[in-house]
C-alpha cells in the first residue's frame, strides 16, 4: 500500500519574499534581539542562584524547610490508634495492613500488625484525612531509601499490643511528627552521622514508647523482626 503523496508545501509555509527593506530589517532585528537577550543573560551573572545544595551544603535540613502540611512518609502513633480500620479501607492501593485479634487470656483486643508499605504508598493523604484520632499522619520525612524492597514495609507493631480504649480527648499527646519514623527506618539514622539533625522540637518531645530495636524477638514470634535488624543483615532468611 503506497499512500498518496501529500501536497509538498502549503503556500503559507514559504518564507516571505524579501524586499530590500525586509532584508535589512531582518539583520537589524536579529542583531538587536540577540543583543537584548544577551543583556538579560549577562545580568544573571550577578544574581544569586536558587539552588539548594541538598544534602550537605545547606543551612538547615530540608525537612525543616518544608511546610507543616507536607505529605511525606506516613507514620502511626500506636498509642492513639483505636484500630478502627478506616485508613485501611480508604487507601486506594491497599498499602496499609492491619490485623487485630482478641487475646484469649486477658480478653482485650490486641493489634498484632500495623504495616504500611511505603513502596506502594502514593502519598495521597486520604488515610491521614480520615483518621479521627490523629494517630496516622504524614510526616515531613522523605528520605526513606532502603536497600531491599521488603524493608519498605514499615512495621509499626512489633509485639501484639493492647488497643487503646480511651476517648479521643483522653488520649496521650500525639508524639512529635517524625519522631517515631526516625527510629524505624535505618536509613534515617544513617543520614546524619554527626547528629546534625537534632531539632529542638524533637528533643523536647516525649521519648517514644517504642521498644528498642536491639531487643531480639523470639524466632517463633508471629510478628516479623523490626526493620532495623533486617537492614543490618539483609539476608533473605531474616527478611520478613
Amino acid at each position: 500500500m503506497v499512500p498518496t503523496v501529500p501536497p509538498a508545501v502549503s503556500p503559507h509555509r514559504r518564507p516571505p519574499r524579501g524586499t530590500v527593506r525586509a532584508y535589512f530589517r531582518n539583520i537589524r532585528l536579529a542583531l538587536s534581539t540577540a543583543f537584548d537577550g544577551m543583556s538579560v543573560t549577562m545580568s544573571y551573572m550577578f544574581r544569586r542562584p536558587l539552588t539548594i545544595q541538598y544534602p550537605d551544603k545547606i543551612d538547615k535540613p530540608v525537612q525543616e524547610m518544608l511546610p507543616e502540611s507536607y505529605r511525606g512518609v506516613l507514620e502511626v502513633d500506636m498509642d492513639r490508634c483505636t484500630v478502627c480500620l478506616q485508613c485501611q479501607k480508604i487507601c486506594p492501593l491497599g498499602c496499609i495492613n492491619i490485623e487485630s485479634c482478641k487475646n484469649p487470656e486477658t480478653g482485650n483486643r490486641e493489634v498484632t500488625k500495623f504495616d504500611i508499605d511505603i513502596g506502594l504508598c502514593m502519598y495521597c493523604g486520604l488515610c491521614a484525612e480520615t483518621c479521627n484520632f490523629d494517630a496516622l499522619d504524614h510526616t515531613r520525612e522523605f528520605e526513606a531509601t532502603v536497600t531491599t524492597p521488603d524493608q519498605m514495609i514499615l512495621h509499626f507493631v512489633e509485639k501484639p499490643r493492647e488497643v487503646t480504649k480511651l476517648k479521643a480527648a483522653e488520649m496521650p499527646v500525639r508524639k512529635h511528627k517524625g519522631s517515631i519514623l526516625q527510629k524505624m527506618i535505618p536509613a534515617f539514622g544513617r543520614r546524619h552521622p554527626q547528629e546534625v539533625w537534632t531539632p529542638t522540637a524533637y528533643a523536647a518531645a516525649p521519648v517514644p514508647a517504642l521498644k528498642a530495636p536491639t531487643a531480639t524477638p523470639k524466632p517463633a514470634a508471629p510478628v516479623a523482626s523490626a526493620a532495623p535488624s533486617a537492614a543490618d543483615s539483609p539476608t533473605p532468611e531474616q527478611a520478613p
Partner: protein
Amino acid sequence: MNIMHYLADLLVRSLFKADPATWPYTWIAYAVVIGVGALLAFAFVAIFAGPVTWIERRIAGRIQSRIGPNRNGPQGCLQWLADGIKCWLKEDLVPATADKPLYLAAPYLVFTGMFGAFVVLPFGAHVIAADLNVGLLYILAVTSLVVVGLLMAGWGSNSKWALFGGVRSAAQLVSYEVPSAFSLMAVVLMAGTLSTQGIVGAQGGWPWQWFVFRNPFLFAAFIMYFISAIAEGNRTPFDLPEAESEIIAGYNIEYSGMRFLFFLFAEWANMWIMAAVATLAFLGGWQIPGISPERIAEAKGWTFVGWQALSFAIFVFKGTCLVFTIIQIRWTLPRLRVDQLMITCWKYLVPLSMGSATGVLLLMALVREGGIVDWVMRGAMLLVGLLVAGAYIRKVRATFMADRDNYKKMEGRDLWYPPYRLP
C-alpha cells in the same frame, strides 16, 4: 626568527658543539624540539579545553540561576579532570553494523584538523610554532579536515541520527567557510600578507590601531567573521549537527568513552581557535600597547622573556573574552533551522562579507593611510564600539535593577551574587 628554530640551533650548538647548518643530524634535534613544542601546544589545548568545559558549565549555571559543578576540587575546578578520567575508563563501544575503518578513524581526523591550526597561532611576539607565509589559508585548509572527520563519523556509525548530524555538519561547515574567508580577505587586503605574525604586525597595541576599528567595513567583517566562526565551531545558534532536541546528539551519538571525548575536546579547542583567529585578525593579536614589535625583538635576556609573557597574556586574555562571549551566546539564543542556516549564510553573510571586502579594497585605494579621513574613520568606529559597549552595560544594569526590589520582597535577601563568595 622562530623561537623554536632558535632553541633547536642553540641545542645543537651548546650540546653537540656543532654548527647546525653543517651538522648532519640537525634534523633529529629539530624534530625533537618541534615534538616537544607540539606537546607543549597539546598541553595548552588540554588545559584550555578542559577547564573551559568547567567554566562553561559554571557560566551556564549562573545564567540559569543555578550553581554548576562545584564539588570536585575548590569550586569544582577539577571537574573537567574527573570527566576526562571517567571517559577514559568507559567502555569503548563500536556498533556491530558500523563501518569500522571510517568509524574508528573519525576522531583522529577531527582532532588532527583542530590541532593542526595551532601551528600558526601567534600566542606571543615570538611564541609561534611556525610563521607560515600562507598562515590564514593554512588555517582554512586544515580545519576542513574536521568536516571530513565529522562526515566520516556520521556515515560510519550507520545510525540515522548520526547520519543527519554528519550531513548537516558538512553542509554547514562548508557553507560558512565562504563568509569567513571573505571576512578574512578584508584583513588580508589591509595587511598585505597571509602570515599570521604579519597580520598582527600590521596592527598596533592601541584599539585605534586594531583592524576592527579601522573602518566600518572591517567592523562589519569582524562581526561577520565572528558569526561564521561560531557556525564553523558548531556552537549555538548554529549547533545543528549536534542539536540534542532534534537529532539527539548528531554525529557523535554512537561514540563512547575516549573516542567521544576527542570530539568534545576538538569542539572546545575549536572555540579557542575561532577566538584566536578573530583576535589576531581584528583585535590586534598579542600587540602590547605602546611597545613596538621591534623593541621586543631587540630586547635581551629576561626583558625579552618578560615581553613574551606579557604578549602571551594579552593574546590569551583577548581570546578568552571572545570565548566567554561565545559561551554566553550559547546560553542565550535558540537554534536555527537547517534552511534558515543556509539562508543566513548564502543570502546574508556571503554577499555582505563580499561587500565588506570590496569596501575595504576601495577604501584602501581611495583613502591614504594615516591621512585625516583615515583618522576620522578610526575615531568614529572606536566611538561606535564604545557606544555599543556602553549601551550593553546600561541595559544589563537596568535589567538587574528592575528585578532587584521585587526579588528582595519575595525572598527577603539580597539579589547580588558577589564573585568572591561563590557558593
